[in-house]
């Protein structure tokens, strides 16, 4: 009997000191300021003072003593979301499971726990977008990014809510557009080839740099010829010569492959690109970017595809800007001097070709450290050094 009483008392004492849901916040908030967790909208576990639904009070593998990795942790309750968020174009933080880039996990003044100033929040990452324009689109100046963009994923490029033209026409009535496009040969369409949806230095949000033929005489291009890439290449002789390389982006695509990336009328800079370069590349090479994103180890500074790849044409593999050493050596100046020998005198016996950086590394990402093609402990070496 005495033993039973002792056992019951011990169990009671143990329960008392365990970080149970009802008690966890009481202990936590002894140290953590309660004001940090109060706002107009409070996350349910915080409101119920169940800190341990997300945090381990003693030790954890993840920052903030999270029980499991961010994203996975959120989806453990919000379990319908992964299936909704994996379709079409997925916003980077969503794809990487970094919910707290936009959402405050404890409390926020914004609905859905969105961090307080949504527009400012967007511009933290989208920092190449100017904060101010001489002429700004009203939703942009209001910071209402979500009037046009979806925050998680979309079937449209740029996470647009609908096609660009559909979005424009949802506010701008066709009658008013006709009035502003007196000499336009057809119903106004392809709005973004001339207009910047965020803002510009020109009235009507017309993009800053105009294609000279567009400025002077439409008939320069809109003549009798078919609007194939040949029309562009007639003037752009340098690009025409580039097309005489082994690999090129010259295709018939939608009638004129130049127009996949360039606007024939106006652009934000001299290149007259239809959007940020990486966004343009992704529009066709989605699988490549997906592979990069899902890789455990990848080249860290992959902000601009054009840093390593030729956009028009190349005589090298993957349309790189040089061979497998030249491209890397522009940044990694001394790498060849102290690592595994590379260059013309070092032959990969498997292929009979010179060893280069890409013989061992894949900068687009792999499952191995330093984006190596295999485990650096041994696996990689024995691909060539069989007796190692």
């Amino acid at each position: 009997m005495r033993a039973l009483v002792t056992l019951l008392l011990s169990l009671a004492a143990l329960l008392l000191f365990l970080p149970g849901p009802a008690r966890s916040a009481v202990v936590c908030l002894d140290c953590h300021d309660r004001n940090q967790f109060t706002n107009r909208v409070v996350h349910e576990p915080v409101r119920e003072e169940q800190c341990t639904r997300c945090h381990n009070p003693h030790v954890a593998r993840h920052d903030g003593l999270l029980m499991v990795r961010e994203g996975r942790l959120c989806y453990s309750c919000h379990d319908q979301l992964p299936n909704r968020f994996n379709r079409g174009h997925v916003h980077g933080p969503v794809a990487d499971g970094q919910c707290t880039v936009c959402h405050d996990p404890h409390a926020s003044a914004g609905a859905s726990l969105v961090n307080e100033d949504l527009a400012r929040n967007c511009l933290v990452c989208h920092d190449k977008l100017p904060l101010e324009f001489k002429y700004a689109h009203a939703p942009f100046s209001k910071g209402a990014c979500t009037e046009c963009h979806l925050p998680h994923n979309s079937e449209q490029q740029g996470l647009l809510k609908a096609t660009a033209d559909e979005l424009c026409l949802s506010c701008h009535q066709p009658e008013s557009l006709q009035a502003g496009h007196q000499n336009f040969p057809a119903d106004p369409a392809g709005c973004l080839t001339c207009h910047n949806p965020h803002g510009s230095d020109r009235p009507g949000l017309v993009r800053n740099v105009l294609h000279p033929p567009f400025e002077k005489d439409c008939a320069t291009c809109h003549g009798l010829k078919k609007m194939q890439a040949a029309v562009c290449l007639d003037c752009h002789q340098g690009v025409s010569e580039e097309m005489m390389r082994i690999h090129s982006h010259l295709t018939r695509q939608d009638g004129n492959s130049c127009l996949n990336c360039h606007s024939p009328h106006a652009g934000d800079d001299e290149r007259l690109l239809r959007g940020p370069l990486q966004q343009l590349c992704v529009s066709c090479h989605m699988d490549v970017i997906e592979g990069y994103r899902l890789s455990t180890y990848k080249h860290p500074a992959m902000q601009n595809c054009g840093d390593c790849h030729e956009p028009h044409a190349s005589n090298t593999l993957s349309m790189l800007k040089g061979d497998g050493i030249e491209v890397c050596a522009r940044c990694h100046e001394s790498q060849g001097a102290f690592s595994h020998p590379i260059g013309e005198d070092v032959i990969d016996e498997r292929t009979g070709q010179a060893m280069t950086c890409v013989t061992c590394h894949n900068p687009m990402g792999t499952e191995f450290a330093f984006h190596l093609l295999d485990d650096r402990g041994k696996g990689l070496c024995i691909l060539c050094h069989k007796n190692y």
Partner: protein
Amino acid sequence: MLKYRTARLSNIVRARRPPGRAIGERGRGLSASPRSCSGKGDGRSPGAAPMMIFAALLLLLLTCGPARVSADDSPWQWTMALKQNLLKDSMIMPTSLYIDEEREQYYVVDSGRNRILSFTRDGELLTIFNAGRSLDTPFDMVRSDDGLIWIVEKGRNSLTSVNLKEKSVQPMTLRSDGALLYPDRLEYHDGLLYVLDKMTGDVVAFDLGLNPVRRYACGDCIEGFIDFKIHGDRLWALDNPGGKIVVFAMDGTVVERMDLGDPVTYPYSLAVGPAGYIYILDRQKRNIAVYDKNGTYKYSFLRYGFARGEMYYPTEIRFDPWGRLCVTDEGNARVEVFSR
């Protein structure tokens, strides 16, 4: 017309064989060799202990299991590689293969070194030809019945004829419907040259005077075609972003369309096998997807890598007249030959 200055065969260099190894030496397949299952005894007396009999039975079971046909469970086995083994003279980005059935020779277009290498049917390097160093980024080639060699030169944007007897080279730009063509892939069939135009994505047939005769176009393809082959009096063309094959009768009418579906992500080249099976090279997956005559997916084989039988940047597939499947791999600078 350019005359290339040569003594007899001076620019058709007989290649030296690297010491200690025969070029084109046949190797074993990717799999273990088939094992002997003769079931013959090992000379021990029939009165051996039951334990020995059990062990022998176990050994027999282990050794006589079904022989694996390949690492990918496909019926294709690596047979040989067409490549240049000389140090610092390996091919750079070979882009295509032409096979001369009459001469039983392979010709590999070495675009990076501006030359063409010929090999015997057994894979032995025969000659290295550079037309007096006049070639500029050759990409594809065929030989016509009159003995002329026709080479697509990307660097000149030309279809270049090479007359070996006269040792002359004549680059010519192609036009059709008034528009300049950007030649890409090239085939020869029944006295006509078939050229894939990169600008339009159409295949245009020319007579040997380079007059356009016929056009094979895909109205509903986004980019036009990326590759084509002629097989069984049909022109088979591959639509890359659309993921489909368009089959034309030789008069230019479309007779069939086949969707490739999910097994391929970046179809880059196609070939039709002797039995009518369709082979699709996937450049991104570095494998080949096989479909039956009806377009039903059957299996895929090959994988990414640099070792024998592996692909880095495969660019073209083609069957030789002896039923072997040849894969030109730009990245690994060789043509891998597989047989069943």
